[in-house]
């Protein structure tokens, strides 16, 4: 393995011997104490058996809120013991990004991260301490023989709300950038500028050391403003899939989409957050997509419950294909919500 940066994941990720690499993304499970463990685990297990992913990504809001909560490490571990059992038992690497609800009940993400990373097949990383958030990292994916870096998977923390953003940067809360009623954009935080700079510099270093641009995909929970804008132009961006709610993005724009555009390595950006959207589109050459929700608590629409599959070929990782996968299609009504 000639390339030493980025360092390999805890379980090194490689394309298969037939030259493929498959990611399964599932988001917004909203689990916790008292979650429907039997249903959720069965659904995730069914997805794994149907799709045989090489990596599973939990796209945020894995925990809480509502009647479901996580108040301490023991409760998180209990929840994850169930939720991650399908990956752990099948030996499938998995990772996660945090959503706006993951730390709603008093367990900071810094503490949660240690528990997540303690699972043998969890390849998530806390990321640099000097930048905002927890779980900003990049996972390299190598060729089947482990010799050639072919793909990078970036994960970025999109935090929670605008109040946290003003607190983080020492701004007067009354000076938040915009009122929450601008369009449909919400009072949400986003990937902050220091994180975008981390992506930007990491991407540059990878290119320097590889001698070429390496295709990449990026996962973050809260959608970018560019998703909001692009979705207004359904025909031009080729929307495929369901949009049953407006894009609930941030009113801040820290330049992440622009940075990806300028770096020219990120070919896909994937979001959770919006339970009732599973569409994908292509804007300025970058595919952006949702995966709806796998929740039995926050999403009661059986037709939507599921995840997203992203398929890469070693011969051309940038030209990935992606599609949604629904629990109803795999399990029939056995995977429906009860009541």
């Amino acid at each position, binding site marked *: 393995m000639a390339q030493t940066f980025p360092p390999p994941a805890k379980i090194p990720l490689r394309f298969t011997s037939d030259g493929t690499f498959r990611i399964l993304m599932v988001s917004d499970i909203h689990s916790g104490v008292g979650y429907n463990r039997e249903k959720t685990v069965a659904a995730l297990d069914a997805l794994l058996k149907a799709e045989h992913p090489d990596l599973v990504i939990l796209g945020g809001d894995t925990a809480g809120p509502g009647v479901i909560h996580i108040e301490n490490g023991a409760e998180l571990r209990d929840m994850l013991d169930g939720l991650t059992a399908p990956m752990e038992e099948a030996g499938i690497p998995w990772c996660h990004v945090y959503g706006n609800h993951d730390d709603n009940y008093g367990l900071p993400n810094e503490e949660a991260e240690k528990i997540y990373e303690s699972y043998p097949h969890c390849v998530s990383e806390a990321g640099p301490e000097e930048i905002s958030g927890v779980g900003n990292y990049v996972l390299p994916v190598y060729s089947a023989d482990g010799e050639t870096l072919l793909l990078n998977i970036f994960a970025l923390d999109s935090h929670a709300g605008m109040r946290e953003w003003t607190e983080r940067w020492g701004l007067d809360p009354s000076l938040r950038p915009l009122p929450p009623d601008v369009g449909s954009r919400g009072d949400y935080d986003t990937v902050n*500028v220091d994180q975008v700079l981390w992506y*930007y510099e990491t991407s540059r270093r990878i290119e320097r050391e590889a001698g070429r641009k390496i295709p990449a995909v990026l996962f973050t929970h809260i959608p970018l403003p560019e998703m909001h804008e692009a979705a207004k*132009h359904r025909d031009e961006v080729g929307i495929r899939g369901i949009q049953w709610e407006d894009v609930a993005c941030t009113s801040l724009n*820290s330049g992440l989409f*622009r940075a990806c555009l300028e770096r020219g390595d990120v*070919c896909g950006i994937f979001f959770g957050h919006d339970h009732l959207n599973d569409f994908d589109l292509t804007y300025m050459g970058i595919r952006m997509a949702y995966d709806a929700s796998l929740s039995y608590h926050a999403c009661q629409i059986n037709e939507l419950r599921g995840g997203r599959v992203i398929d890469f070929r070693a011969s051309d990782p940038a030209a990935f294909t992606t599609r949604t996968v629904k629990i109803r299609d795999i399990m029939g009504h056995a995977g429906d919500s009860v009541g």
Partner: protein
Amino acid sequence: MTELHFEGECRILLLHSARLTPETVEETSARLGAMIASASPDLVILDGDTISSPAADPRALLDAFLVPLSGLPWTYTFGDGEYKCGTDPRALDRIFSSVPGCIVGERAEGIDGITNAVIPMIAEGTVQFLIRLFDTHRETTGYERDYGSPGRSRLPYPLYSHHYMDGVRFCQTAWFDEDHARRSKEAGHALRELFVFHTPTPEHAEIPLNQAACRFDGVFREDSRCQTVNGGIGCAAAESRDVSAILCGHEETNDYFGTWAGMTLGVLPALACGAWLVTTDGTALSIRRIRN
């Protein structure tokens, strides 16, 4: 010359879109002279589109236009017009910077654009604040050329503006972040900054749409012609907490400012409509409109 010395509060005359031509330069120069007489500035900033149409002799136009300065320091940024006027922008930059009284500032190297520069503003022997100038390029038709990437043979243009303007790119945002941190470390304290560039950010366009929340002041007569794909400079400035204002041009008849995340964001009118006198010590800032 790369820095400016002033006493007390600094008075900056800010104007854009002089759009010099041989036919209009005399009248435009007279307008500039009247503004200088009214404002008594310490510094004049030409915020882009000073020359925006083909000119046989840009130097002669500048010399004629700047006669009223009479040795007053001045500086400039490029607007989209300087990229479309037919003169090579690098050559045009050499012409601008060679005119007497020009403060080029400390130029950024290795990033997109030509007129990215920092001007240390000095009083009582120390840097009181920085003026940071950004090059905002031109329309986004250069994306395909500039941002080739694996698997991306063709890039459709941005969608959500009829004007397709470029602006401060993320590489320039990264330059601000690194350069600001370095200068502040060297100074031993956080240095305040005033940003000046031609094409407004998308955050500028939000000000007139949220007039009460943003304490809007001025007039909003034409659709915003802001940057289409946000380069993050507004958010970076807010997170730094060290930028007092981001002042832009480009639009012809709009003339407004407001607050956003604790900063003043302003769009000043084209020279044909007026200019602004900005008085600041680097932290507090006041804007006086100067009408023709």
